[in-house]
């Protein structure tokens, strides 16, 4: 039992940055923009969040919660900035979405590693935040809730970013399903010409969804530097998480609600090696599991041919009203 709870805790912690990246990408794809630059935006969010917290400590002496909030804000802005470049290129200049997304992934990786090393040099060797700030990202003590046997440890023993990710997922689900603007956004991603003829400003929706989506990806990146590596810059810290998030969007069939448990499954698959080691099975086999799961989902989806649990129809295509 103890082992299971530990495993679940590890799965949630490993799954949260993936969940954030996935949520950002779902919002982006719902607007018809297939932004493959999640990896880049997470890198940008990772270094900017860490740098934000570090400078807040150095310059203003803010430690703990204020530094954590600065990290949140700056990482969101950095991810949003990456997405803004993407939106400008694809929506306004109508550049190819795949190429632009891949370029953003490469750009963001370089951006993250370059400024990460630079920051480390400036800090004299390696960069690290104060223990008060680290403490702000540690697991919360929710008082009596955390004391409930089993359930307390399963549900109420995480850092605040985990709960933020869950709240974002639920809000995004409600937004897409229940609100008029959510309906409009889905229409833009499915059929921009229809949305346009219905009087919806397609470009505004595409820009906003992409930029906010990028910001959420940025927060996912910040989670990696502030929680996973405890406020220390590690070279190539995101490596592959952004791509896993793109795969997870497919796994979750473009639904923020399903992304919740799909993120947990992926987190679990990544941690399986530590909690369920089978002698003789090399680590690389375990590393393959999330991708194998994605392939299985793709196969199942192509057999079921469902119209609703599918990629927004015009995702990946640019829209131009006067195109003939």
């Amino acid at each position, binding site marked *: 039992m103890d082992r299971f709870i530990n495993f679940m805790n590890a799965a949630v912690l490993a799954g949260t940055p993936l969940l954030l990246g996935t949520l950002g990408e779902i919002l982006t794809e719902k607007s018809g923009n297939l932004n493959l630059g999640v990896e880049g935006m997470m890198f940008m969010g990772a270094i900017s969040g860490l740098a934000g917290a570090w400078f807040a400590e150095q310059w203003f002496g803010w430690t703990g919660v204020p530094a954590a909030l600065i990290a949140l804000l700056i990482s969101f802005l950095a991810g949003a900035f990456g997405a803004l470049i993407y939106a400008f290129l694809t929506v306004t200049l109508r550049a190819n979405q795949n190429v632009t997304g891949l370029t953003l992934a490469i750009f963001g990786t370089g951006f993250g590693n370059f400024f990460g090393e630079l920051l480390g040099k400036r800090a004299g060797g390696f960069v690290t935040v104060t223990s008060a700030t680290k403490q702000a990202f540690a697991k919360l003590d929710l008082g009596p809730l955390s004391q409930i046997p089993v359930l307390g440890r399963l549900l109420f023993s995480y850092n605040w970013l985990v709960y933020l990710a869950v709240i974002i997922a639920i809000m995004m689900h409600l937004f897409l399903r229940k609100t*008029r603007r959510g*309906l*409009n956004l*889905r*229409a833009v991603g*499915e*059929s921009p*010409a*229809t*949305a*346009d*003829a*219905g*009087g*919806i400003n397609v470009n505004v929706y595409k820009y906003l969804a992409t930029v906010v989506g990028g910001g959420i990806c940025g927060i996912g990146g910040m989670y990696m530097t502030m929680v996973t590596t405890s406020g220390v810059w590690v070279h190539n810290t995101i490596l592959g998480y952004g791509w896993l998030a793109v795969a997870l969007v497919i796994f979750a069939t473009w639904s923020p609600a399903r992304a919740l448990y799909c993120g947990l499954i992926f987190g679990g698959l990544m941690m399986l090696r530590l909690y369920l080691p089978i002698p003789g099975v090399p680590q690389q086999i375990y590393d393959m599991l999330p991708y194998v799961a994605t392939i299985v989902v793709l196969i199942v989806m192509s057999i079921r*041919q469902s*119209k*609703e649990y599918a990629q927004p*129809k015009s995702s990946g295509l640019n829209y131009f*009203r*006067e195109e*003939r």
Partner: protein
Amino acid sequence: MTQEDKLAIRMRHISKSFGTVVALDAVDFELKEGEIHALLGENGSGKTTLMNILSGIYYPDDGDIAIMGQDVAICSPKDAFNLGIGMIHQHFKLVDVLSVAENIVLGLPPSEETKRKRLNQTIRDIADRYGFDIKPESKIYDLSVSEKQTVEIIKVLYRGANMLILDEPTAVLTPQETEKLFDILRAMKADNKAIVIITHKLNEVLAVSDRVTILRKGQKIDTIPTATANRQILTEMMVGRKVDLQIERPEVTERKLMLQVNQLTALGPDGRKMIDRISFDAYGGEILGVAGISGSGQKELCEAIAGLCPVVGGSILFETKLNGVDVAENLVGQTPEAIIRKGISLAFVPEDRLGMGLVASHDMIDNVMLKNYRDHKGPFVDRQTAREAAEEMVDALEIVTPGVRTPIRQLSGGNVQKVLLGREIRSNPQMLMVAYPVRGLDINASFTIYRLLNEQKMKGVSVIFVGEDLDVLMEISDRLLVLCHGRISGIVDPRTVTKEHVGLLMTGGHDEEVGA
């Protein structure tokens, strides 16, 4: 008060160019309240462009527009429906995964009116008033084509449109559905709405409209009351010269059995039964027309015979010679390549010309080569023969193209079809299957295609013509096969049956008589 006050729409000197192509050249257009106005013209005459300007899709380069006597500028679709203009596009603008009601309110500001319950009631009220039949909760992907069109019409009515523009609304409907649509249009006219119907079908203009405006090559020819018009006058105005509207049906005395289809059953891409135990014969020297509502199994029938669609039962026997002996070769289970290697020459002009028939980004030479590359041995391709063939085709079929090296994509629809049909005919087929060969083609190009098909028939080729325009099918076919839900509901002699009778067969009526 002046005359102009009764005008719902007045467009003056409207011009619009796309790059160097002038789509509209100083066109005037007037629409009165409570009239059905037909906008007639061939492809590329600018009729859809003119209406797209009204609906805010395009912005005119020059000219001015007045709605109800007020000068306006229409910059976006939103402006258009604020002015009460609603357009029903040829390609429906609906979101598949949303419900009817969601599609109808898409883009409207949220309010009490658009709360789900109230909304559904309003939709039902509109449906009752004009005689529609629709459920607000259905998902679009579950609807038939004519139901989708209904949703489009309700959508613009819900938004309070009193000027409706319908772009080729009958292209996808059966005769019965068309009649129903016309009744709805008349009901709306009685409600004092102004209606424009864009079309190139003359009988529809004559059946439903009050006035007709004819466009040709971006210029307005005239506006006349429909009562003073007839088919001949309208065609001459539309095409610019006298055209013989009679489609020929030359008689061929010698008919040879070419194809026997027996109890054929085939599946669609999703594994559903698309054609169900159908049996018929096709003869050399005849045109066998195939009629049916779209999606009744026409596509699968052609593809099954061409070896492209999985057949689960029945046989397709093709009369041919193998080693000098007359045999009936069963095509079921054979790949197109195996069929070709057996010396059976079967030409197929698919519905999706640029998807299945030709490679859009290749030029004519490469596309011709796709068909005949096997004739040349060795590792290299033979471009010379293909080039000569392509040049001959350009001359023989009067294909308008800058040259045989121009990518097919840049040709107009009629010329693309000529390239495809020309290539297939060059292979001297014993059998020629054409699916919707004149879809999207103007009168001139259509008549060229009919002439080519008749030539093939006179040569003793067995032609199968899958079509959507019943008038054409009834004029050109020697026998007419009617499909309904994947089954044959009748094989009739088009010389003796009525159009209504065929329409009935298309929608599921039964028929005992079998044509000659």
